[in-house]
């Protein structure tokens, strides 16, 4: 008897016990369905994160910061170590350092992180937000190479700003997108937010208002400078700009180094009078020349240069941080997540496997005589084993296929529900589940494997049926 005969006999047996086999197969289908939907969620999350990182071009950049406190020493109560790390000659993140980093081979752009709170005024409307300074050269990179309205500024000294949609909304304007019309919410309409065309916004004048210390006022009344009658020692500085473009709403994976209500050209932004918080001395230094910056943004030409450049910068005595470095950790995290999710599915599948064992042992007990007959007409132990083994395998295959269908339906429904809830709260539409082909094939393979494993014992029992005992007439 050939293998295909054993397979067909196994199938025929399944067909004969329809209801019982359907229930057993359903058990497997549920197990596989649970497994694929769980794991596809983990994979979907991972894909969304890595896609977003890639989308936002985070693989080619790093952040440079000054020397940090030796946290490990602090945790271990090693006060001396902490003090030592403070006293260590920490190089400043100043212009010299920036020039040195810029001149490193493979560095595309390097610029200091400049961000400070501002008030924005457009017409009669005002709002608080932050202003971030970027060089014009960032215009060729994501997300600034594809801004929805207007253009990224062409020069570092241009008097143009880019606005975030949320800031625009605070200024009571929403851009009408003819392709994707969004109805204003009731609250927004009540507040007086108006839907306008992008053209009517672009080029519009906008004032950036910053607070600066009025040293003369402190001198007038040094002991009571908060006295409101004499006026606070602050003064508002107004810098006029025009709106050069409108940005996309940042997603949760957007590079946080670029998120800001207002983005202005770096040269022009540095001229805006402001309170510097980097050093107390700045407060009294009317030149406004800062001693150092908080951080540098460095972008390399090629991802593979990142490690080398990162090392070089660390040799200079700075701290660096890159997403690339974090990616391995992220991947490890996802493996743990996938394993945890997969375990739930695997447990369901093993319960189903017990069902297979139960069903098959039952059917073997009922079919003892038939097995005896097969032996009497020449069936070998291996052939009989094979028939029952294929029966189990077929349960695994059919259960696996139905499990995939079930898993697919479940994840589609879950996706719709999740997106409904998330978008209600203003989140983006995302596919939370992802079923790569390897998951589908792997799940079917695993289903067959587990089913065959479950069939091992029943098949062995079938093969060991004593024909004399089985055929003794009753």
């Amino acid at each position, binding site marked *: 008897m050939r293998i295909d005969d054993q397979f067909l*006999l196994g199938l025929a047996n399944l067909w004969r016990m329809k209801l019982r086999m359907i229930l057993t197969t359903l058990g497997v289908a549920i197990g596989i369905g649970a497994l694929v939907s769980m794991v596809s969620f983990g994979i979907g999350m991972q894909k969304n994160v890595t896609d977003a990182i890639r989308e936002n071009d985070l693989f080619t950049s790093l952040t440079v910061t000054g020397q940090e406190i030796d946290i490990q020493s602090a945790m271990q109560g090693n006060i001396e170590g902490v003090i030592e790390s403070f006293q260590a000659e920490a190089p400043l993140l100043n212009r010299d350092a920036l020039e040195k980093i810029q001149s490193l081979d493979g560095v595309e752009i390097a610029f200091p992180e400049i961000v400070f709170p501002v008030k924005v005024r457009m017409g009669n409307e005002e709002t608080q937000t932050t202003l971030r300074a970027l060089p014009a050269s960032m215009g060729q990179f994501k997300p600034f190479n594809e801004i929805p309205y207007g253009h990224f500024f062409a020069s570092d000294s241009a008097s143009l700003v880019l606005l975030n949609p949320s800031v625009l909304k605070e200024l009571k304007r929403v851009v009408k997108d003819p392709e994707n019309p969004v109805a204003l919410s009731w609250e927004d309409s009540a507040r007086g937010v108006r839907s306008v065309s992008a053209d009517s916004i672009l080029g519009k004048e906008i004032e950036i208002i910053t607070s600066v210390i009025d040293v003369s006022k402190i001198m007038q009344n040094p002991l009571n400078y908060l006295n409101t009658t004499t006026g606070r020692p602050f003064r508002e500085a107004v810098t006029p700009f025009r709106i050069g473009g409108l940005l996309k709403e940042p997603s949760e994976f957007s590079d946080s180094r670029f998120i800001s209500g207002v983005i202005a050209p770096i040269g022009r932004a540095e001229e805006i009078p402001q309170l510097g918080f980097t050093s107390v001395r700045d407060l009294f230094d009317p030149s406004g020349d800062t001693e150092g910056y908080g951080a540098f943004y460095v972008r390399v030409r090629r991802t593979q240069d990142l490690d080398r450049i990162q090392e070089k910068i660390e040799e200079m005595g700075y701290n660096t941080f890159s997403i690339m470095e974090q990616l391995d950790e992220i991947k490890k995290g996802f493996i743990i997540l996938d394993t945890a999710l997969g375990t739930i599915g695997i447990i369901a599948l093993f319960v189903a496997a017990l069902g297979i064992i139960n069903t098959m042992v039952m059917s073997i007990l009922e079919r003892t005589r*038939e097995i005896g007959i097969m*032996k*009497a*007409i*020449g*069936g*070998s132990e291996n052939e009989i084993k094979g028939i029952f083994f294929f029966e189990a395998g077929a349960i695994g295959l059919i259960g696996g296929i139905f499990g995939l269908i079930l898993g697919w339906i479940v994840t589609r429904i879950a996706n719709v529900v999740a997106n409904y809830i998330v978008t209600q709260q203003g989140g983006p539409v995302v596919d939370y589940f992802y079923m790569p082909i390897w998951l589908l094939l792997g799940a079917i393979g695993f289903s067959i494997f587990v089913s065959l494993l479950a069939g091992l014992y029943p098949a062995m029992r079938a093969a060991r049926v004593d024909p*004399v005992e089985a*055929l003794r007439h009753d």
Partner: protein
Amino acid sequence: MNTEDSLNPILRIQKIVKNYHKGSIQVQAVQSISFDVSKSEFITIVGRSGSGKSTLLNLVGGLDRATSGHLFVNNADLTKMKRSELALHRRQTVGMIFQSFNLIPSRTALENITLALAFGGMKRRDRKQKASEILSRVGLEHRLDHKPGELSGGEAQRVAIARALANEPDILLADEPTGNLDSKTSIEIIQLLEKLNQKQHVTILMVTHDEELAKTVSHRILHLFDGKIVHQQILRRIS
């Protein structure tokens, strides 16, 4: 116990013993039986219920193992065979029929035969043709697609005979083939066996209660009592 052709027997049984253990009690089902069966011989074993007839047949059929002794079929010793070799023996060398027919109830007459052919290793596309051929040889060409439950006792036993012969065995073993049949049908079945023996020279080892019916067709009759052969009747020569 000699036969005319004892020099070249198809089956040689030597001092075969089979003991069963029922708890602490030992049942000696077969006690040192020896005899030879020649090619084309129709040999019948009679004896009371419990005398060890079925046990002996199961030993020859390779369904059971002897406690001691030797069983040569075509000069191969069954008592020395591995389990897989015994399966091969059951498939190729012997064909068995039983009192209770032992057909697979969920399969049609034809499918019961094709299953045996499948075990025999025949290609799938040839099986149906061969199965219906064998069924018409036992006069059942009109019952191919009937399930065993839809057949009369005589018809069911014919299907069983056809199945036993499907892989062209050297010996047909029949354990009380008429035990469940009325006397008219019993005669028909015995005549079918006789025809197979006479025309196709099938060697037959049959067990029966019905000594009178056996006398009409057998070459030899062995009388079994308490697991021993107590008497032998030679009725006619092998033609």
